[in-house]
């Protein structure tokens, strides 16, 4: 079996970029990854571009801008998992022998594409009676409170933790610490959530270059290459009976695919970047990944176990809540953070001695399926 490595990473500032386009942001991230890898861009054999709300062939516009030409590129869309799906495309191309070096990126000019509460498609029968994405997650939070005694303050602590991490990340959308009171007093969105329980609408792009183990041996810098041990993707199941809204089978099943491929288990994971689109989401992801037992993560956050310096840091980059959430860039930016941490290049938010990191995305809503697409990626030093 071919081994796959990340040999270059690039990322733009996340935030509001009123004067820029998705293609321009994407090109900046791709050029960053090429410079980071110190390769001739003509070595790149295939490419995948994640975008959700951008014009068609946005990926080709990015390649055009950076002068990459002729290679196969597919734009991929899997809602909030689009960026991770792009990485999986490059991962499989290397396994298939189609490419020894492949480029994956995600870009989103979300402020230009979209306003207001994020809702499912207009055909969605739940949207027709008033569902919004914050409302769906708020209902999961309310149920979790009932079942496991989660408190409003415990939820707020997740936002405080992630925005504190973001303040250490120069590329993050949010730049400053907040307090639990700030979260509790924020404008209500869908109870128990206020504005600071929700990830912001951000613009941004991120890119990674993957290469085969053989290529790294011949042309690369093995000391900087980080192994992508697994890149798993699953589609949510339509439920045949009402299930639990406080445990994510889809996250568990996708994680199990990844653990099996990587030959590791939850006990081997040193840190995690997970899809905290809302505060409760971080709880559901972490417990679905098997990193904490169901019902126990909120108290662990309270004890500081998920802090940088804690037992298992979660979202050291700031996560979606702090770093921002330009949809298709998110999954790629998670892998960028994992690589920085595993290289020891994470600066003031460096996790000491980290050897195995995990990244998780989940998104999209379809009838009877609460998560349309879920991705889990494992990187090892």
């Amino acid at each position, binding site marked *: 079996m071919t081994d796959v490595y990340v040999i270059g990473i690039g990322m733009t500032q996340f935030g509001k970029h009123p004067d820029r386009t998705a293609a321009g942001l994407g090109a900046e991230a791709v050029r960053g990854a090429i410079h980071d890898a110190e390769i001739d861009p003509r070595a790149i054999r295939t490419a995948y571009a994640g975008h959700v709300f951008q014009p068609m062939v946005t990926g080709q516009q990015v390649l055009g801008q950076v002068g990459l030409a002729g290679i196969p590129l597919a734009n991929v869309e899997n809602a909030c998992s689009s960026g991770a799906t792009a990485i999986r495309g490059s991962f499989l191309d290397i396994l298939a022998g189609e490419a020894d070096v492949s480029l994956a990126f995600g870009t989103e000019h979300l402020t230009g594409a979209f306003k207001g509460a994020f809702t499912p498609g207009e055909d969605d029968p*739940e949207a027709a*009676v*008033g569902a919004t994405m914050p409302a769906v997650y708020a209902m999961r939070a*309310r149920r979790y409170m009932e079942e496991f005694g989660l408190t409003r303050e415990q939820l707020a602590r997740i936002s405080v933790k992630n925005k504190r991490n973001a303040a250490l990340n120069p590329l993050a959308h949010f730049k400053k610490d907040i307090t639990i009171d700030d979260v509790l007093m924020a404008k209500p969105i869908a109870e128990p959530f206020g504005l600071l329980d929700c990830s912001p609408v951000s613009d941004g792009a991120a890119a990674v270059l993957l290469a085969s183990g053989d290529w790294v041996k011949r042309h690369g810098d093995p000391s900087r290459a980080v192994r992508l041990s697994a890149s798993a993707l699953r589609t949510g199941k*339509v439920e*045949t*009976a*009402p299930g639990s*809204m406080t445990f994510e089978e889809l996250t568990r099943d996708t994680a199990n695919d990844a653990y099996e491929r990587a030959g590791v288990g939850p006990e081997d994971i040193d840190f995690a970047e997970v899809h905290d689109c809302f505060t409760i989401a971080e709880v559901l992801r972490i417990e679905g990944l098997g990193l904490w037992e169901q019902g126990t993560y909120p108290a662990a956050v309270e004890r500081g176990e998920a802090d940088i310096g804690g037992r298992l840091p979660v979202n050291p980059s700031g996560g979606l809540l702090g770093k921002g959430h330009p949809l298709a860039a998110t999954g790629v930016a998670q892998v960028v953070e994992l690589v920085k941490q595993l290289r020891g290049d994470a600066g003031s938010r460096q996790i000491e001695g980290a050897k195995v990191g995990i990244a998780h995305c989940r998104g999209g809503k379809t009838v009877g399926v609460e998560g349309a697409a879920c991705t889990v990626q494992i990187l090892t030093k």
Partner: protein
Amino acid sequence: MTTRTPVSFRPHDLVVDDDGTGFLRGSRCPSCGAHYFPTREVCAGCLTEDLETIPLPTDGTLYTYTVVHRSTPAFEVPYVLGYVDLPGPVRVLGQIDADPEEVAIGMDVHLEIVPWGTNDEGTPLLGYRFAPGGDA
């Protein structure tokens, strides 16, 4: 020229009788017994392709809820929104016609038919909500 008789906002999903009562329609799999809302053509459990369309029970219990303060322009905020488990079992999302303080997980609720604005032609529409208490 336009008819002023109110019609269901989603006629396939919500059936409203002349007396203003109504029910939701779902699917039942004759092979494995799974229930679905809205209706489906293929059973997600056993892949049977001849599902029955059935009226769903109108009484259920509240699985969870929220109070929505920010929504699309189609909805006036705030409103209570909740998932209701109906016998089948099947889970249905709907607005809850109650003050936020009255609402609690596990409470009994029943379907009610309510005005739901008008369509593009100006015909009044009927939708559904759930209200506290059993129907009987």
